[in-house]
């Protein structure tokens, strides 16, 4: 309790200091921002002059609609509070008023609010924001009425899904006919809850939900373009829940539906993105249900998604597809390991992923004269895979604590990936990719990573040698990032190199010296080392970045 008061005290002190020294200026800036708009409207200054004044103070143009937004938010919050208040009142099950009077009162209030929403919106047009909130309030009151009636007649909680359906459906016409986005969002959220509660209560997939979303909710969403994502996100959430309930056909239909919707109904990236998210969910559901059946069907939508994402130039979808491909590969390996009853082994798993990383990086290189905007995704994913697994294998304990590898599925696939890598390298050589300096640096990194991985794979029992190899890979990565950053005049890449180098040094330092009995020496030396090392690195880093900028 005292600690909370202490924290609050200091927060208040900090707030006062900030207000004193910064808030004052803010107040003047706010005045200036508003005045500039007034001067422009009064033709005292031109828009260009106003923009120049704002720029000289590093200020943004004031949004004149902001006041309207505040009113909108206040009335909306007010409606939500009153609506929730009624629902909580129903939940408290007050007995002072007879049931029939309670029901009549709440129904009267609901219908009255609905009419008030209409009246304020269309008869008296001077309160349009209030009208919108009243429609939402009517929708919330309607939920309260349904809850009250089903409470009075003791409709069992196992039928809660029915209550959400009775709530959601009747408020949808309000959203449609009055173009009310609040009730549209409320209705969409309630339909999603209906779907989940139905699936849990009945232990069955709710295909009606999919029909409803694709045939009704998504077409209606055209009225509220800004909120189109609500039901797309709901579908992804529903698909995610269906994975837990082992309803793979539900997830498949949702995924395919989104793809069809994208292809033939509405070519918006959000649908492609949602389909790219849902298909791997189906893959997982398929695996959860059939642990010994590989899902090669997944490759068909994956290929289509890759094609569409390239066509649309969507980097987000390509990234998701790449992760999906990795998930598929891992689940397929898991299926075959289940079939031959082979246990997973971490070292070979890491080496395989390190090689996959190298292959992905090489695929990124192949994008040089074809969809160049996508190259960085492959290179980044590939590098991250190589770096993470090299980092893990750089700890000697990983090799010491694991039993020696027996040749199996992982090793076979590692060899296959190595061959793919060599084939890709041959193509890149033929294309002349490695002629420039950056290409050469990337080649060195890939070569060290793959040759290192193959060396570890060939002799997994040699713990010390393998640890040294993994550490060499890490150092090479850090150095190559630094050189590439300087060569490409890319401060981000250079900073990453510094970060990797620092991470490597700290890890090895802790790794080696933590075993010392005297921990005080460890901390003292570490502190001094970090302070001076940090100062030196920061100085050098700044110098190089300044040079790059100049």
């Amino acid at each position, binding site marked *: 309790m005292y600690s909370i008061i202490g924290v609050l005290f200091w927060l208040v002190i900090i707030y006062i200091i900030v207000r004193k020294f910064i808030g004052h200026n803010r107040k003047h800036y706010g005045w200036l921002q508003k005045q500039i708009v007034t001067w422009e409207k009064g033709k005292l200054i031109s828009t260009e002059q106003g923009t120049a004044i704002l720029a000289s103070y590093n200020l943004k143009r004031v949004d004149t609609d902001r006041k309207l937004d505040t009113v909108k938010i206040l009335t909306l919050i007010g409606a939500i509070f009153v609506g929730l208040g009624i629902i909580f009142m129903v*939940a408290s099950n007050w007995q002072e008023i007879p049931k029939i009077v309670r029901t009549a009162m709440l129904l009267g209030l609901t219908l009255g609010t609905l009419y008030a929403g*209409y009246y304020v919106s269309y008869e008296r047009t001077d309160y349009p924001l209030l009208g919108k909130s009243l429609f939402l309030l009517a929708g919330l009151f309607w939920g309260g009425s349904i809850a009250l009636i089903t*409470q009075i*007649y*003791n409709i069992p*909680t196992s039928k*809660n899904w029915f209550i959400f359906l009775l709530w959601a459906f009747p408020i949808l016409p309000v959203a449609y006919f009055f173009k009310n986005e609040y009730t549209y969002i409320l209705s969409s959220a309630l339909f999603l809850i209906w779907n989940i509660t139905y699936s849990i209560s009945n*232990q069955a997939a709710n295909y009606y939900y999919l029909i409803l979303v694709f045939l009704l909710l998504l077409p209606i969403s055209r009225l509220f373009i800004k909120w189109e994502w609500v039901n797309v996100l709901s579908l992804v959430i529903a698909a995610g829940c269906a994975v837990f309930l082992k309803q793979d056909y539900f997830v498949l239909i949702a995924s395919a539906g989104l793809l069809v919707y994208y292809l033939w109904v509405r070519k918006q990236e959000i649908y492609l993105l949602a389909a790219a998210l849902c298909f791997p969910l189906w893959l997982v559901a398929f695996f959860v249900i059939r642990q010994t059946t590989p899902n090669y069907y997944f490759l068909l939508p994956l290929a289509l998604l890759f094609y569409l994402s390239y066509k649309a130039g969507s980097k987000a979808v390509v990234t998701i597809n790449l992760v999906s491909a990795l998930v598929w590969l891992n689940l397929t390996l898991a299926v075959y390991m289940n079939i031959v009853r082979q246990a997973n082994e971490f070292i070979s798993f890491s080496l395989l992923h390190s090689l996959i990383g190298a292959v992905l990086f090489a695929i990124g290189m192949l994008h040089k004269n074809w969809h160049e905007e996508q190259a960085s995704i492959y290179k980044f994913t590939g590098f991250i895979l190589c770096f993470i697994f090299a980092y893990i294998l750089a700890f000697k304990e990983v090799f010491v604590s694991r039993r020696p590898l027996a040749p199996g599925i992982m090793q076979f696939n590692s060899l296959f990936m190595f061959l793919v890598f060599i084939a890709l390298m041959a193509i890149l050589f033929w294309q002349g990719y490695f002629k420039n300096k950056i290409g050469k640096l990337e080649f060195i990194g890939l070569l060290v990573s793959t040759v290192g991985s193959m060396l570890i794979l060939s002799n997994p029992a040699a713990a010390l040698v393998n640890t040294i190899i993994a550490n060499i890979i890490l150092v090479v990565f850090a150095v190559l990032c630094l050189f590439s950053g300087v060569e490409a005049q890319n401060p981000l890449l250079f900073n990453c190199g510094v970060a990797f180098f620092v991470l490597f040094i700290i890890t090895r330092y802790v790794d080696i010296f933590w075993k010392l009995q005297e921990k005080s020496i460890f901390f003292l030396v570490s502190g001094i080392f970090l302070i001076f090392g940090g100062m030196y690195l920061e100085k050098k880093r700044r110098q190089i970045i300044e040079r790059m900028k100049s």
Partner: protein
Amino acid sequence: MSKKAITLVIAAAWLVIALTIIISKERILSTGNMIMLETEPVDPRDLLRGDYVILNYKISNIDIARLAREPGNYSRGQQININLEPIGKFWQPKAVWLRTKPSGGVNIKGVVRNSQGPALSIEYGIESYFVPEGKGANIEAAIRRTAQGKVAVEVAVDNSGRAMINRVLIDDLPVKFD
């Protein structure tokens, strides 16, 4: 159609939905057969409708091997009918059926929630009894003090087998929330 007409149509639709539920439930209460069932309650909370008592009836778990039954599928999710007969104060299952209605007694409709051979767990739609906030625990305490078999529920069952709770009784006295 004008916006005013749309408002009135929506309002009328809401009223019809609400009245349909109310009238159908009131009809069961007014025209249904009243039967008494034995229970074993517990007390959780629903997000929308507040505190309620879960009512687990003796007829919620039945062994159909001991009853007269129509041959057929009695697996999970199946809708079945139970023929009840009064034994003493309470009504007990006499037969289970799917299509052929037996003569005599009261027939109540249920859904098989779980089945293990002839042992069925059945839901009748009368498993939740909503109580004022904080009052459920008081009822439970009263239930714990009384001997087994003293907690009963009066249920109305209409001709099609739909059931509704009319009132809960402890020691033959209806539960009241004052």
